[in-house]
């Protein structure tokens, strides 16, 4: 839809961030080349411009990094919690100082709008370090026993949708509890993790406490399988999560998995329509829908379907897709060509299965990876687009008549990560929230995050929680059978 007023371009300057032509692995406080000399390129998804060449970690590098982390663990874990806390507070502060630089960098490497990196990712990243910094000297009060102990070396594998935020979710609680870390960022978004290495350097963090190993899935698999890793933390697809669960079977490794989702966003007939529409848009088009807890299934009460869809379509027509560095951009680029292919194929399947596809008039840039916001109606529970995680800006609309039906449909999924409830009736919120099998439930809001709040899934959305007091548990040794804790 052509708007009455055209927006003037409002690009954020990229000159604030210096990207080197090449980066090494960050092991034991130094940037080093991969043992076998392998490298890969990271591109900007909105332009396909090559941003940098990155060393690709192999098995030998994983081994080197784990050894460095093991060595560093001795001193790091013995440090008084109050000292570890200060390192984490320093990191939080440096992130705040450098947040504009990091926001631009993240937008370049990931393709998400600057509006989101600047206003959502970076403030949350700093907040996570600040939050867990405060726990480091209070662990004996956290409810996990009088003298909770760290596990050792944490092997952490994170995805490309929130590269720096996922790093924060993993590294902050690990360091606060006295563990050391080997982290593998995703192959399409390694840059912010490598910049984080520089932040560790500025903060004076002891060598080896944090090690960063960019690479592909095989690097992650080697890290997870390394016999001297005590704790595995993974965020990513359910398929890989299952593979990891098999890999660690029969070992003593503690595991947490944050996997996929197919969140139901339930709108009752008494919901405030305009607010609900904003929530639906936020639920599925935030970060181009590349969010594990996205509200990708809209369950709308039949009696308000027409009214809601009309409002929703009107709202979608005002979304601005394009240059992620433009401050007015709502929808950025899809993270990679591979992901774009996956979204496209699932959407084609949705059409082939008889669902009705709709997108607002939307011009896609010529280079880069783009997908227009897409809505499917006439979707049934049997449709693949209602069951499989698409991980893109694609919303499937289903209807229901009674609250029981809404609950049954919402729970009819192998996943159980998130859900939304829109109604003015408080008792209905609590009743429905009680019955939903999902780890995070947003009522009259969606996609809200906070470091104090446990986040994680039921069923095939994974195990364990990140955030809050609960997030500490994943990095602490299990209690003795004598019940000392």
């Amino acid at each position: 839809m052509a708007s009455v007023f055209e927006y003037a371009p409002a690009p954020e300057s990229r000159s604030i961030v210096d990207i080197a032509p090449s980066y090494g692995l960050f092991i034991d406080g130094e940037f080093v080349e991969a043992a076998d000399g392998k490298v890969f390129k990271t591109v900007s998804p909105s332009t396909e411009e090559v941003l940098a060449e990155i060393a690709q970690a192999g098995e030998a590098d994983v081994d080197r990094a784990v050894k460095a982390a093991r060595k560093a663990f001795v001193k790091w874990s013995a440090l008084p919690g109050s000292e570890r806390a200060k390192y984490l507070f320093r990191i939080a502060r440096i992130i705040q100082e450098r947040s504009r630089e990091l926001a631009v960098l993240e937008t370049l490497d990931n393709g998400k709008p600057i509006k989101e990196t600047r206003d959502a990712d970076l403030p949350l990243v700093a907040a996570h370090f600040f939050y867990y910094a405060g726990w480091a000297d209070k662990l004996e009060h956290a409810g996990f026993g009088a003298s909770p102990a760290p596990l050792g070396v944490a092997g952490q594998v994170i995805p490309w949708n929130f590269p720096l935020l996922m790093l924060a979710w993993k590294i902050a609680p690990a360091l606060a509890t006295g563990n050391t870390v080997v982290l593998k960022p995703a192959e399409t978004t390694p840059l912010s993790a490598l910049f984080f290495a520089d932040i560790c350097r500025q903060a004076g963090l002891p060598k080896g406490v944090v090690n960063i190993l960019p690479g592909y899935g095989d690097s992650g698999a080697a890290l997870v399988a390394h016999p001297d890793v005590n704790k595995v933390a993974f965020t990513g697809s359910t398929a890989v999560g299952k593979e990891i669960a098999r890999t660690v079977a029969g070992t003593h490794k503690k595991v947490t998995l944050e996997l996929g989702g197919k969140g139901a966003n339930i709108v009752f007939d008494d919901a405030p329509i305009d607010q609900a529409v904003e929530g639906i848009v936020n639920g599925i088009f935030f970060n181009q829908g590349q969010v594990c807890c996205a509200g990708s299934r809209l369950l709308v009460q039949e009696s308000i379907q027409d009214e809601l869809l009309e409002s929703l379509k009107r709202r979608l027509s005002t979304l601005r897709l394009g240059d992620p560095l433009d401050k007015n951009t709502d929808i950025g680029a899809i993270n990679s060509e591979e992901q774009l292919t996956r979204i496209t194929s699932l959407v084609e399947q949705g059409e082939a299965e008889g669902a009705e596809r709709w997108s607002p008039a939307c011009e896609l840039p010529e280079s880069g990876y783009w997908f227009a916001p897409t809505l499917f109606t006439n979707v049934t529970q049997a449709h693949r687009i209602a069951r499989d995680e698409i991980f893109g800006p694609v919303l499937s609309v289903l209807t229901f008549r009674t609250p029981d039906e809404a609950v049954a449909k919402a729970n009819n999924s192998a996943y159980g990560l998130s859900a939304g409830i829109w109604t003015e009736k408080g008792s209905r919120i609590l009743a429905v929230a009680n019955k939903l099998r999902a780890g995070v439930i947003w009522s009259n809001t969606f996609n809200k995050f906070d470091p104090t709040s446990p986040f994680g899934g039921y069923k095939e959305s994974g195990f364990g929680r990140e955030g809050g007091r609960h997030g500490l548990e994943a990095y602490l040794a299990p209690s003795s059978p004598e019940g000392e804790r």
Partner: protein
Amino acid sequence: MSTVEKNDKTERAERLSVFKTYKLYVGGKFPRSESGRVYEVTDSKGNWLANVPLSSRKDARDAVVAARKAFGGWSGATAYNRGQILYRIAEMLEGRREQYVREVADAEGLSKSKAAAQVDAAIDRWVWYAGWTDKIAQVVGGGNPVAGPFFNISSPEPAGVVAVLAPQESSFLGLVSVLAPVIATGNTAIVVASETSPLPALSLGEVLATSDLPGGVVNVLSGRTAEIATPLAAHQDVNAIDLAGADEVLAKELEIAAADNLKRVLRPQPVDDWAAAPGIDRMTAFLETKTVWHPTGSLGASGSSY
């Protein structure tokens, strides 16, 4: 033996005792194994005690169906109500204390006093967990002070249907120690009894059936642990598995199978003394945390004036 009994024997023909037919406990009923198979159970000295059902994969699947059916009601019951029922189990056990002392003594080759100590500890354990049902949510849940106009609450919820492989050695106290925490928190359970000493577990079914515990909340199977556990670990409608009764090799196999639907797995933990205080880990292992967000709105920058 007392002199009275001696006299009875000399005066009357010896009374033939009534054997008990040990059966499974599934869905609140006492079926035989669908397979029609049984196996011999002996005491620690090798004397025959009973023929008990040798459960099949089908029995395991039936038990999952029963446990799933019971889950809504049990997890939806008030925590207070669940506590009452767990306490009632202790009451019923107390009344049959002598029977369990005999069964545990036979099963584990213990002296009567040592067996009695095990049974007493098991009864006390039900009482302990009865008190936990309405407290665990306060201990592991909470309100979260988010930075924004929202409030959210984290509360624990049961994971769902839990397969429990009871410890092999401790036929009764071990069994109760792994079963009670699972149902105290609102899960429903399929428990696989100790392979060599299943009689106390099968008898427990009789107590559970008379303790106001809804049918299907606990289902007791006897047989070969590996044979029953394999389909349970692979079952898509089982949410979690406690591997206490599996040896290292079997535990690894089952953990791999459990990955297919990302079951929550509690790996075998070394336990020197089942009578020691258990802590809350066995409860939290089968709990999920649900975080519910809601906007708070605002009364304006100054708030209300008092």
